[in-house]
């Protein structure tokens, strides 16, 4: 195969050069090139090694259906593996490498696999590595021995380890009509729908609109088809009601016409513009969809059909007409239908000689014979190709007479450096199949056609089996109208299409069984041969779905675009059934590979939403290290220069115990519970009583789930007879709100209660420490804050720096403490006023780490302990379970397994070697560092306690209550931390609470 760039024609801008590298070698191409066309034009024929047998492979196609030429594209240190070279647009500085070869593409040691082919056929893994072990070369243990080598030898590209820093965006869109595919049918459909005033979206997988018009070589109404398409695109682009997306693969068709598409925004550029996403995930809601997705040409299965130089006729025609590359000098054609004669003419025009046209049919049509003589090719009807010759590159073929079933007679050798194959066409019905329709077998086309739609779509063009351009344009027009329900349309003047367009109706020949050796491939990408399909039949895997799973036919990244129908046909022959009875597997999304980044778009990276408290900027200005808690950002520590995290939080916590500190608690969930039945409602959702709570007081409350496990805790304040303010943990704010709404809407609609989330309306600051009252006294106006006016759990209203505030005396730290709430807009102002008032008392801001330290010292629980598996009793909160009333979870919480004394219970842990231990470390009864012991529990939280002067931890330990005072061990093999611990009460500090009541 000696491919060269031809002097003119196609989409290639020969006036500009683009430099790129493939496997370390520098090449040049031109704007308009794909990596495939540029390499081909540089004479590169070997693109990769095959999946299993490491056979040399070249290009089979020119588009998204390419099974062989998978490459890895490298950008900086980010690797993008398994990209078909046919879909990579060339850009300046592109670097790509071939895959699945070692040490090099030209010389690959694993190529020896092809001689062991008999032993690694279909089901090789199952047969060799599954089941009972007898002897050393069988069974699971053998797998464990071989896994490393097999994983290295098999497979495709290697993923990189560098993080992908690209930005991925998500977009929702609505349209009346979505047209998928921009060939003649799609362009015509989009124009017709747009004429009706509909909002139209047109999606094209390629960079260039126009589809087959770009390479058919036809003229439409006297203009070259590609120019006709450009003009149609220009007309559409002028319309305000048409949105056109190129480089966009529509990959998923979901319920009620929800369409998923991937737009590759910057993959074709050396570098994206500032802020430009790499990929954009489109979620399109279309009133109706026009499927004009065209068709894929199929190969014929024959021995040696994978040799570089053998390619699909349409692929070569596309390279010639669209990319300006002649794929060979001496070209042979092997076909079962008339369309390949068009490819012969196209290649002849590029100056190649067509050495032979091998047609399996005994008679060729008049048109075909005429075409053959026009390109002065020898026409061999009733012949088949039975072997290919050459090493890593084709240098000849062998042909034999063929009677439609089998070959006979002497083989004749024909020299050729390129063999173009056409085995008929399969309409690209993937999206219709995803939408739930079973395809219908068409005898004339020998292909599956889309059936009656089950969703609101209309088909047009080759997708429908209308392969002639004039028909496709007419069908597109009709589909565009049907999609809009339009009736007042102008009649379409049928276009005059000229050029050679052969009928795609093939002879029912899918496979040539040659006498010679040589593998005949069905699925090129997964290395599934015709013999593998027959082996599957012999072993009883006869249905389409079983065949697919057993041989992995069609399960590679190309999803069997070229292999599906030939595979079914070979199975049908083996079973003696017609093809439709073997069936077709249902296509599933995605139609083409989708980047994982696009699916997670805007859920990570800088497009992820963030929640910031009103005092966020203040924290940053004052040296806070921020910590993300869900979507929230909270100060972790306010570290001084040179301080470690531990030094910082220990200093902060110590100040709270000895003086006064202030912490931002705005992230706590806050829910206004209002209405005449609010008290009754809270009695039902909390385990303890709230209807008896006096106005102006707060109470700590615990909620369970319906199944009796602990759910969330927090304080709820009674602001008025019919008004409560509930607080929840930061993490559970949303879930608690939904639980309340569910019960009010569904279970107790008779209760007169409204719940409103007011988390974002209030800013909150907790000031804690023995001096906290003095700080308030210095700045609060309009109310007293002494022990009489503001007792423990009392609430007062006043002002700070002229801002209305609500102050509740409650304590998470165990010290005398208050929570000050004000309107979110005034949060920073009140915070700064508190800081100013606290200055004489040396107030310091403290972060989450110190907050955690203070609560661990007190044995208060948070989400690490209320983890969905613990009960109120496990957490020693049984005193909160009212016996006077039923509440959510009360019926289920006393089940046998939930009251067992041996459950994981909350305990305190003191490491006896006074070294830190980690959350998640296991507690064991006996310590063996070398082999794991049964865990009796795990550490949930750990800190250095300044109050106690040592490291302490909370843990959930089996029967923990009874183990107090006993010895156990911490075992953390991952972090190599082992050592003795003492199990103690979780109340480390001030167990009777005298400090906060003082």
């Amino acid at each position, binding site marked *: 195969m000696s491919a060269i760039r031809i002097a003119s024609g196609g989409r290639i801008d020969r006036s500009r050069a683009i430099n790129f590298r493939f496997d370390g070698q520098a090449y040049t191409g031109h704007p308009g090139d794909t990596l495939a066309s540029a390499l081909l034009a540089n004479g590169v024929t070997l693109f990769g090694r095959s999946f299993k047998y490491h056979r040399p492979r070249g290009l089979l196609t020119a588009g998204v259906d390419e099974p062989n030429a998978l490459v890895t594209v490298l950008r900086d240190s980010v690797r993008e593996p398994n990209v078909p070279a046919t879909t990579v647009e060339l850009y300046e500085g592109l670097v790509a490498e071939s895959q699945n070869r070692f040490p090099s593409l030209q010389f690959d040691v694993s190529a020896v696999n092809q001689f062991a082919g008999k032993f690694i056929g279909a089901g090789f893994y199952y047969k060799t590595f599954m089941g009972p072990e007898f002897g050393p070369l069988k069974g699971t243990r053998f797998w464990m021995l071989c896994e490393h080598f097999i994983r290295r030898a098999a497979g495709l590209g290697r993923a990189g380890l560098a993080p992908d820093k690209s930005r991925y965006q998500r977009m*929702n*869109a*609505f*349209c009346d009509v979505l047209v998928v595919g921009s060939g003649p049918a799609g362009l015509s459909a989009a124009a017709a729908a747009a004429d009706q005033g509909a*909002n*139209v*979206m047109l999606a094209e997988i390629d960079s260039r609109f126009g589809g087959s018009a770009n390479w058919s070589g036809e003229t439409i109404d006297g203009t070259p088809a590609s120019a006709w398409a450009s003009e149609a695109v220009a007309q559409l682009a002028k319309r*305000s*009601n*048409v*949105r056109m997306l190129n480089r966009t693969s529509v990959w998923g068709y*979901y*319920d*009620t016409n*929800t369409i998923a598409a991937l737009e590759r925004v910057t993959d074709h550029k050396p570098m994206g513009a500032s802020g430009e996403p790499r990929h954009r995930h489109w*979620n399109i*809601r279309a009133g109706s969809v026009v499927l004009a997705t065209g068709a894929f040409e199929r190969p014929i299965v024959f021995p040696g059909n994978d040799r570089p130089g053998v390619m699909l006729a349409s692929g070569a025609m596309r390279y010639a007409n669209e990319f300006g590359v002649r794929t060979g000098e001496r070209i042979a054609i092997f076909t079962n239908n008339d369309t390949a004669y068009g490819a012969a003419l196209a290649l002849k025009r590029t100056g190649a000689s067509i050495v032979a046209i091998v047609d399996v049919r005994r008679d060729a049509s008049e048109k075909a014979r005429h075409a053959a003589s026009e390109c002065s090719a020898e026409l061999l009807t009733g012949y088949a190709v039975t072997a290919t010759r050459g090493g890593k590159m084709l240098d000849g073929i062998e042909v034999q007479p063929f009677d439609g079933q089998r070959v006979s007679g002497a083989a004749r050798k024909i020299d050729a450096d390129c063999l173009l194959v056409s085995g008929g066409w399969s309409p690209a019905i993937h999206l219709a199949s995803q939408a*739930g329709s079973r395809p219908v077998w068409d005898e004339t086309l020998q292909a599956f056609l889309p059936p009656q739609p089950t969703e609101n779509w209309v088909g047009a063009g080759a997708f429908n089996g209308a392969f002639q351009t004039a028909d496709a344009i007419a069908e597109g027009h009709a589909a565009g109208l049907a999609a809009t329900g339009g009736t007042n349309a102008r009649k379409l003047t049928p276009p005059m299409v000229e050029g050679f367009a052969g009928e795609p109706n093939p002879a029912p020949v899918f496979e040539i069984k040659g006498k010679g050796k040589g593998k005949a491939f069905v699925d090129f990408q997964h290395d599934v041969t015709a013999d593998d399909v027959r082996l599957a039949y012999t072993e009883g895997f006869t249905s389409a779905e079983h065949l697919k799973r057993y041989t992995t036919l069609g399960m590679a990244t190309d999803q069997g675009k070229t292999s599906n129908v030939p595979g079914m046909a070979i199975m049908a022959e083996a079973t003696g059934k017609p093809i439709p009875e073997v069936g077709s597997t249902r296509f599933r999304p995605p139609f083409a590979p989708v980047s994982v980044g696009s699916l997670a778009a805007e859920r990570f990276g800088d497009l992820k939403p963030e929640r910031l408290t009103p005092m966020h900027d203040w924290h940053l200005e004052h040296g806070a290290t921020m910590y993300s808690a869900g979507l929230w950002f909270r100060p972790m520590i306010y570290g001084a220069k040179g301080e470690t995290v531990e030094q910082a939080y220990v200093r902060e916590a110590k100040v709270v115990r000895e003086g006064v500190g202030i912490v931002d608690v705005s992230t706590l969930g806050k829910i206004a519970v209002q209405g005449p039945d609010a008290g009754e409602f809270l009695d*039902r959702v909390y385990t303890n009583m709230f209807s008896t709570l006096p106005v102006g007081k707060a109470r700590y409350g615990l909620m369970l789930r*319906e*199944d009796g496990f602990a759910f969330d805790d927090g304080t709820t304040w009674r602001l008025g007879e019919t008004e409560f303010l509930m607080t929840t943990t930061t993490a559970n704010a949303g879930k608690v709100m*939904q639980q309340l*709404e*569910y019960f009010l*809407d*569904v*279970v107790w*609609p008779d209760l007169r209660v409204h719940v409103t989330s007011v988390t974002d309306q209030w800013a909150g600051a907790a000031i804690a420490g023995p001096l906290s009252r003095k700080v308030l006294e210095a700045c609060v106006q309009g109310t007293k804050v002494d022990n009489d006016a503001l007792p423990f759990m009392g609430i007062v209203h006043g002002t700070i720096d002229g801002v209305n505030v609500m102050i509740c005396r409650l304590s998470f730290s165990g010290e005398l403490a208050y929570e000050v709430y004000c309107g979110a807009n005034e949060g920073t102002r009140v915070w700064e006023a508190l800081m100013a008032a606290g200055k004489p008392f040396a107030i310091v801001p403290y972060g989450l780490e110190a907050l955690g330290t203070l609560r661990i010292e007190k044995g208060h629980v948070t989400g690490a302990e209320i983890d969905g598996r613990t009960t109120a009793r496990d957490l020693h909160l049984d005193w909160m379970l009212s016996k006077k009333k*039923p*509440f959510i979870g*009360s*019926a*289920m919480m006393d*089940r046998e397994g939930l009251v067992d004394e041996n459950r994981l219970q909350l305990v305190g842990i003191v490491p006896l070697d006074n070294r830190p231990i980690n959350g998640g470390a296991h507690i064991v009864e006996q310590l063996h560092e070398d082999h794991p012991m049964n865990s009796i529990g795990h550490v949930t939280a750990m800190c250095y306690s300044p109050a106690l002067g040592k490291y302490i931890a909370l843990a959930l330990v089996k029967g923990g209550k009874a183990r107090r005072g006993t010895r156990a061990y911490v075992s953390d093999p991952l972090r190599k931390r082992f050592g003795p611990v003492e199990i103690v009460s979780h109340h480390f500090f001030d167990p009777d609470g005298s400090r906060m009541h003082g």
Partner: protein
Amino acid sequence: MLITCPYCGPRDVVEFTYQGDGNRTRPDPASTDLNAWNAYVYDRVNIAGDQNEIWQHSGGCRTHLAVTRNTLTHKISSVRSTHAEPPAPPKPARKKPRAKA
């Protein structure tokens, strides 16, 4: 999947939160019949066909909706608020946004 909220009109399923089986009935709160509670909390039928479900329009009006959905086709045959009579159909939405960016 589209759910037609009686208050907000047809909306994408991502705006909704599944809130469980719509067939179960909560036992009397004072009931101590563990079997009844067990059935309410854990027992579910796995219907191939029309199924009653509770969905919350959590990304919208936050109403809980009683939805009848076909588990085989995702066709939704009825949607109503769990505690109110269906309201009057929503007024036509504001002018359709133009497709062109």
